[in-house]
């Protein structure tokens, strides 16, 4: 019995000594670190700090360079976007004027018909239609169509028998003329005393005008080939200006 106690006691003592030994070792390691001396550790930290400082400065320079580059890039992109936008606006303007694109906007729909009691030969009165278009242009309209035929730079109104040909398409009464523009100026340009509407009414046309917030005018379908008119190159143009 006594032997067993002795063995147990010695076992506990050896466990305790083992714990004390490891604790003591760990404590010293924790306080002093690894095998390095304080000076060595300080030196290592200094070295690392120096390297980090150099790296940090290089990175800051790189970041500043990138930011400056981005700023220049942004300014360039903005400038180019503005340039493209300006050119796009010019392109849109020319596209709309050409009549080769469907357009929409507020404007007027003018319906021209003949008074049942009057004899109207549209072919003989085609100059009134031409005059009406001229007065619409006077009102600053931006697009015109006659019964769906877009009035372009090369549209002719040809009197044929008792009808007219517009863009080569035969049209008879009633005519529907659509024009996109300002309601008030259109009204003023067409309906003044002795104006084109009153002249046409006098000879037996019945004209109705309806202003709408949105009308659509179809594009001209067809091609125009220039055989005789040669554009003068911009360089030649500049020389002429000089």
């Amino acid at each position: 019995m006594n032997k067993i106690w002795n063995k147990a006691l010695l076992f506990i003592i050896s466990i305790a000594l083992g714990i004390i030994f490891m604790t003591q070792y760990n404590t010293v390691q924790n306080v002093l670190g690894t095998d390095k001396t304080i000076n060595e550790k300080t030196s290592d930290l200094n070295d690392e700090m120096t390297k980090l400082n150099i790296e940090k400065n290089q990175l800051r320079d790189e970041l500043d360079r990138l930011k400056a580059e981005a700023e220049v890039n942004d300014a360039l992109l903005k400038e180019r976007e503005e340039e493209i936008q300006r050119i796009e606006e010019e392109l849109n303007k020319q596209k709309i004027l050409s009549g080769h694109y469907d357009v929409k906007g507020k404007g007027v729909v003018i319906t021209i018909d003949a008074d049942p009691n009057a004899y109207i030969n549209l072919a003989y009165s085609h100059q009134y239609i031409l005059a009406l278009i001229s007065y619409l242009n006077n009102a600053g309209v931006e697009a015109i169509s006659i019964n769906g035929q877009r009035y372009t730079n090369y549209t002719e109104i040809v009197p044929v028998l008792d009808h007219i040909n517009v863009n080569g398409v035969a049209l008879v009464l009633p005519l529907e003329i659509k024009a996109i523009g300002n309601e008030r100026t259109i009204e003023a340009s067409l309906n003044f005393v002795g104006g084109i509407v009153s002249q046409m009414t006098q000879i037996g046309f019945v004209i109705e005008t309806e202003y709408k917030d949105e009308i659509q005018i179809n594009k001209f379908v067809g091609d125009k080939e220039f055989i005789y008119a040669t554009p003068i190159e911009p360089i030649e143009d500049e020389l002429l200006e000089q």
Partner: protein
Amino acid sequence: MVFIRFKSFNILIFILTIFVSAAVVHGTNVKIDENTIYLLEKINNFEIVVKNERVNVENLKHEIEVEKGKMVSVNESEYFDTIIEMNKNIQELKHYNGFTDVRGPGIIMRVSDSVSEDETIDIMDKIVHDVDITVLINDLKSAGAEAIIINGKRIINISEVVCAGPLLKINGDSVSAPFLISAIGDPEALYNAVNEEGTYAYELKNVWGMEVATMKSYNLFISKLPKFFEENYEIQYAEIAE
């Protein structure tokens, strides 16, 4: 046997005791005085500073990556290709729309008020009116005119030719008789369109006594719309319908 094992155990305890003693001695030998603790504290602080610096460096690296990601590459060739393509389209449309100077064969016409002494003709019928010019333009277009100009005013699809008292208004400017009309196209066709019997110009000359003189030209110059018109003209109401 039990004795031997007991002995071995004692030896183990003995060795452990030596280790513990060595560890204690080692612990006391490290000489952790106040100065050491101060230095250790400084090293700890320094380590924190270095650690923060590492974080700063990592943050900078991350920031650089973000900045690089944000950098939009400016594609020079794509930009210039776009500009060239758009300008090419604009140039073609400008030619179509009458915004370029052109040269080519055609006719020159001079139209002025009647000098007829026929008293049966009303005085108002002896004057060249807006509609007369409008019809002449239309006749020239019908004959395939590719460019028309009247007293320096280029005629395009938005040009108005309207009465402005004793003058005419074309492209917003006042124009007085005599009216000099130049048109580029097939000279023969254009000439016939304003000279053949039954044409509007023929009637003006032979019925109403207007002065109408026409000559063919094989090298006419027709100027574009004025620069201020081109620059200041804005589309306000129409937009391209998709």
